[in-house]
């Protein structure tokens, strides 16, 4: 079979460059930089033997030169971006040169540099609040997709109610942080000093995760004997029970939702007071937590599925009878998989609730579960890197549709394909996205990655991180 990865990536890259220019988002100076970057990447793809040797440094070089070029052309790129781009490039160069000495530390090192860059850019307001929230949703979606992949991809069950444990995690952690560190009608004054919010928050998240994992435990019990469609219905039922239970608990806001987490996330900045300082750090704390939560989830799942212990669930997926008779305590492994998956969904829920500052039971409806399913199938069943990529693509796509739909609307009007009285509104988002799922299932049913990892397609990436 021919490998289409490179041509597709290269075509996508140049299409994006063309689009940026044609839509007026990039002026002539930007175009120069973009062509430089595109050229570097294309060389890395198609330079053959020479690219294998120099491709990496050519890409690094073109990125750096392009960035400086933009910097000197009327500061089209500000100095913070220059700093961060070079930090990242430098970190990659270091890993490339010396990474083999301590391979286990490459990924943590690169992630630490990335986190620093994100925090720095937010702190300097080089990336605005809107872009920060897109980054946070990306992280939360990554947790959602990778954790669901454990059950639907690796174990081969069909969980359609991932939003259920997410809601539990969101509510439990939110109720806890607000009770401990925030002022609210339900709980009155904070029971602990808000200055402790920063340190108490991960603990509250953990409690939310534990509560969500308990829901996973409950779902796993029918899964001992029930498989396929029947289990899918049970998972939907559980998520509905959770949603309606919350809707009917008026103490915590019922269907109106629960808020007050905004003050908690703001209070995190008061942490220096604990050390007797009066200053505030003014850091984007929620972004940091989401980043750490995302890394933690992928790290934990990766360790699970690469161990012989975790591979027990892959055995259940591929032949449950053989797994049961040959060695695997299938019931115990199902409990473990459902609890881990749901627990991490609870983490995603807790982070989501604090990122947007309020929770509402309708956030966790069937649409949320469907989004998670969509990302898993887009990325590929049983591929962690696939789920990560799919979550990024999905979040970007959902956001891009905000801009694409008006363009589509005017294009259709221009071509007189729809009556002039009708406007294509954002409602069509939820037609276009499911349509995407149909297209994927038709053309690449195994998803972008199949059940393989990114490093299987690009072995060179193993220098930076190992997914297997």
């Amino acid at each position, binding site marked *: 079979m021919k490998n289409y990865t490179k041509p597709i990536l290269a075509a996508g890259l140049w299409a994006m460059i063309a689009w940026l220019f044609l839509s007026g988002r990039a002026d002539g100076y930007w175009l120069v930089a973009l062509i430089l970057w595109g050229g570097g990447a294309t060389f890395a793809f198609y330079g053959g033997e020479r690219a294998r040797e120099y491709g990496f440094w050519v890409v690094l070089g073109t990125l750096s030169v392009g960035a400086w070029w933009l910097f000197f052309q009327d500061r089209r790129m500000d100095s913070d971006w220059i700093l961060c781009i070079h930090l990242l490039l430098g970190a990659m160069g270091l890993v490339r040169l010396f990474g083999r000495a301590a391979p286990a530390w490459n990924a943590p090192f690169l992630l630490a540099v990335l986190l620093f860059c994100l925090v720095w850019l937010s702190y300097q307001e080089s990336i605005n609040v809107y872009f920060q929230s897109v980054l946070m949703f990306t992280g939360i979606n990554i947790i959602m997709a990778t954790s669901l992949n454990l059950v639907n991809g690796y174990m081969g069950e069909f969980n359609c109610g991932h939003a259920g444990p997410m809601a539990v995690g969101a509510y439990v952690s939110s109720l806890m942080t607000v009770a401990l560190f925030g002022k609210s009608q339900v709980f009155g004054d904070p029971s602990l000093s808000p200055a402790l919010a920063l340190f108490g928050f991960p603990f509250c998240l953990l409690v939310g995760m534990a509560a969500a994992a308990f829901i996973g435990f409950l779902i796993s019990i029918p899964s001992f004997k029930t498989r396929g469609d029947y289990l899918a219905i049970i998972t939907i039922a559980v998520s509905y029970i959770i949603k309606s239970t919350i809707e009917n608990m008026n103490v915590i806001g019922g269907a109106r939702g629960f808020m007050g987490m905004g003050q908690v996330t703001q209070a995190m900045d008061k942490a220096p007071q604990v050390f007797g300082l009066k200053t505030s750090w003014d850091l984007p704390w929620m972004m940091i937590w989401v980043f750490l939560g995302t890394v933690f989830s992928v790290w934990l799942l990766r*360790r*699970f599925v690469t161990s012989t*212990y975790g591979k027990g669930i892959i055995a259940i997926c*591929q032949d449950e009878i053989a797994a049961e008779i040959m060695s695997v305590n299938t019931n115990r492994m199902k409990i473990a998989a459902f609890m881990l998956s749901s627990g991490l969904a609870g983490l995603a829920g807790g982070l989501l609730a604090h990122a947007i500052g309020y929770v509402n039971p309708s956030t966790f409806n069937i649409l949320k579960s469907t989004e998670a399913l969509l990302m898993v199938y887009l990325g590929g069943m049983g591929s962690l890197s696939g789920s990560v990529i799919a979550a990024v693509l999905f979040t970007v796509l959902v956001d891009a549709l905000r801009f694409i739909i008006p363009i589509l609307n005017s294009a259709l009007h221009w071509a007189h394909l729809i009556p002039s009285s009708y406007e294509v509104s954002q409602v069509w988002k939820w037609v276009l996205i499911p349509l995407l799922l149909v297209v994927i299932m038709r053309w690449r049913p195994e998803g972008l990655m199949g059940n393989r990892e990114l490093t299987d397609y690009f072995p060179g990436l193993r220098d930076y991180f190992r997914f297997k």
Partner: protein
Amino acid sequence: MALLDVKDVTQQFGGLRAVSSFSVALEERELVGLIGPNGAGKTTIFNLVSGFYQPTMGTIRFKDQPTAGLKPNHVTTLGVSRTFQNIRLWNDMTVLDNIRVAHHSQLSYGFFGCSFRSARYRDQEKDITANAMKTLEALDLDQYADEFPKNLPYGTRRKVEIARALSIHPRLLMLDEPAAGLNTADLTGLIDLIGWIHKEFPITIWMIEHQMQVVMSLCQRIQVIDFGATIAEGTPTEIQNNPAVIKAYLGDDTI
């Protein structure tokens, strides 16, 4: 004391009595055959011994310990291991992983061990991998370690399944029609392999097989069942000339 002692075991599936009052005693290091016409209940007997079904009546003792109520993975840890009539390998896992996962019930670390890569985790994973590679080398399968079973020829898959069963050092190895679907060249290879395993490892082999060539050349004694009940027992030559066996296989021609 017999290694495996099955006494008066009956298995009822609704109205169907798949196994009725079946008894057998296997001694250490024996190589015993179990034959019978299609649907006689042979595989069901293996499933009972594996702990996959709980017998309707009767007792099964392994190493003098009753296995009633034990889950199959627990029975495996006691030292019972098997292959399946229609190969049941995990097809999207490498051959090496197939064998590693067979050690699942022996793992002494759990979720937290694998999350934090505890010392016990690292030691055990290393041991398991070494043991798996050793088994593959012994059966001359090491060149397939990173292949997926689905891409291997049929005969090799049979062999990998035997390697998987053997890798956990069982005391009793149950082979369910190991020769099914093999060509003549593979067949002689299989006979040699089973003979070699029996000689090389301190193991009892219990084998269901239709191919008379395999049963006759390997088994020390054979038990014949029909409709879930034993109809004959003896050495290969005795069985070959037993009228009850011939009748079970060829049908009752008195009609």
